[in-house]
């Protein structure tokens, strides 16, 4: 009964080609470091570069700090908004969306202007980078936690815990947090993949992070950049694949990213 859908197939094939061709080309390119044979030479060269290990470890540390701070900040806030001050929800939501309004380059410009002169000279401290990354994670973390809390009966859980004598700390860490595991994982993975590849903030704040390293290699080498792009893409895939595995359903919404 269905007629053969010509136009839809055409768009899908064109879209698929456009999606896949750069990925295939990059993969192919990354395997051709030795003339005439396909091999992992470029990957070996990247992995043996001491700077790769250093910058990767640095970005990894930044990502972990960012995720921890972001969770510690956002969970109590969103919980509190749900429980006590729902009227502040639009304001909180608005603030979490601000990182989409402020381009990264403007963001870092403002940070440098504010924190490179007394009274607060923070540009020499990685705390500033983590703080900025936490702000970048707001939209993803907020949505993840908000969706997670909506699925819970926050008030009943809280009252049940209180009537058993729990204080706020116990409620947050032993009642709310465990119930939000899945939601937090999706927020955390997304934050992880953003921090790992971030260029602008790390570059202008002059930190030896993975993004600037990729950029450097991209300027000086031929095949290694392709290998790096594949590694970085694999990280993104892994994060987003894990999100979809853990949090079926609402992941699609949280994935919409800002400009880079």
């Amino acid at each position, binding site marked *: 009964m269905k007629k053969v859908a010509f136009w839809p197939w055409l768009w899908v094939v064109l879209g698929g080609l456009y999606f896949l061709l750069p990925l295939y080309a990059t993969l192919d390119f990354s395997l051709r470091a030795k003339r005439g044979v396909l091999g992992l030479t470029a990957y070996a060269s990247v992995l043996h570069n001491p700077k790769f290990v250093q910058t990767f470890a640095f970005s990894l540390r930044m990502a972990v700090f960012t995720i921890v701070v972001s969770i510690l900040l956002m969970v109590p806030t969103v919980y509190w908004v749900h429980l006590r001050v729902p009227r502040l929800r639009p304001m909180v939501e608005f603030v979490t969306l601000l990182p989409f309004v402020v381009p990264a380059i403007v963001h870092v410009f403002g940070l440098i202007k504010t924190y490179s002169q007394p009274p607060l000279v923070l540009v020499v401290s990685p705390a500033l980078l983590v703080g900025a990354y*936490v702000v970048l994670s707001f939209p993803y973390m907020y949505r993840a936690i908000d969706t997670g809390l909506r699925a819970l009966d926050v008030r009943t859980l809280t009252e049940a815990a209180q009537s058993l004598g729990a204080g706020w700390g116990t409620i947050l860490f032993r009642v709310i947090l465990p119930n939000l595991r899945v939601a937090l994982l999706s927020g955390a993975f997304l934050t992880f993949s953003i921090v790992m590849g971030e260029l602008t903030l790390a570059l202008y704040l002059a930190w030896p992070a993975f993004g600037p390293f990729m950029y450097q290699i991209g300027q000086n080498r031929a095949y290694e950049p392709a290998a790096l792009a594949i590694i970085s893409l694999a990280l993104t*895939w892994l994060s987003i694949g894990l999100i979809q595995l853990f949090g079926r359903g609402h992941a699609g919404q949280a994935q919409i990213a800002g400009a880079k």
Partner: protein
Amino acid sequence: MSQLVQVEAQTARMQVGRRGWDWSWLGVIPFFAFAVAFLIWPCFSLVLGSFQDPQGHWTLANIRDLGQPFILEAYWLSIRISLVTALVGGIFGFLLAYAVTQGGLPRFVRSGFLSFGGVASNFAGVPLALAFIATLGRTGLVTAVLKTVFGINIYDRGFNLYTFWGLSLTYLYFQFPLMLLIMAPALDGLKREWREAAENLGATSGEYWRYVALPILMPSILGTMVLLFGNAFGAQATAFALTGGSLNLTTILIGQQITGDVLHNPNLGYALALGMVVVMAVSIGLYTLLQRTTSKWLR
């Protein structure tokens, strides 16, 4: 005794938090303080700085100086590239969203494209630039295949990845997946009854789209295109990694101002940033407004 009861009642009221003056809003202070410290105040200080001269006196000179030709050129280039990628990405993303939701294709096509869109719309920055260099750079795969198999040297024919069209092509990689991700749910929201009603009244498929579906979706389509515009306008990492500094985009110019004070006036740099935020705020505001118009129908 009665005082104790009163205190208890008050405590209960505070805990329920519904009536009277309560202090529960204090609980969100850490969040707002954090946002102010790491985002709002730094950006606000740029705004202040753009209305001051280097000595700290108030002035509008910086805003006026934005009218210099090379600054206008930077804005204009950013605007053109954002317009082109928003239009092309928007139209193509919509067609793709239409194909995977309404096109009668197998389900795996749909879920595959939506997952892929999620990745691709996040796949911006350095890795994207590197991927396009491997694809369409001077020694890229597609360039080489076109040369050896079809005998077409695109670089002889005026194509260059490191110019306007090359960068646009690269931006499209994260632009149209974003359109796809936002439009697919909207297209899903079109009610079957509308189509049936239109067909019962004798409408052809084309007429249904022209008079029913597109008018409902139009605000959402336009709104999302505006969002794409802002998305491209604020992008810096991709352009920087692809072209170094050779394309005079607003974001690149701000980057050069940060590292080398190319404008020879820090406050003019702040004004440049202010201009960007204004454009972004307007485009995201418009998006929200237009999206609301459509969502009234699609509930």
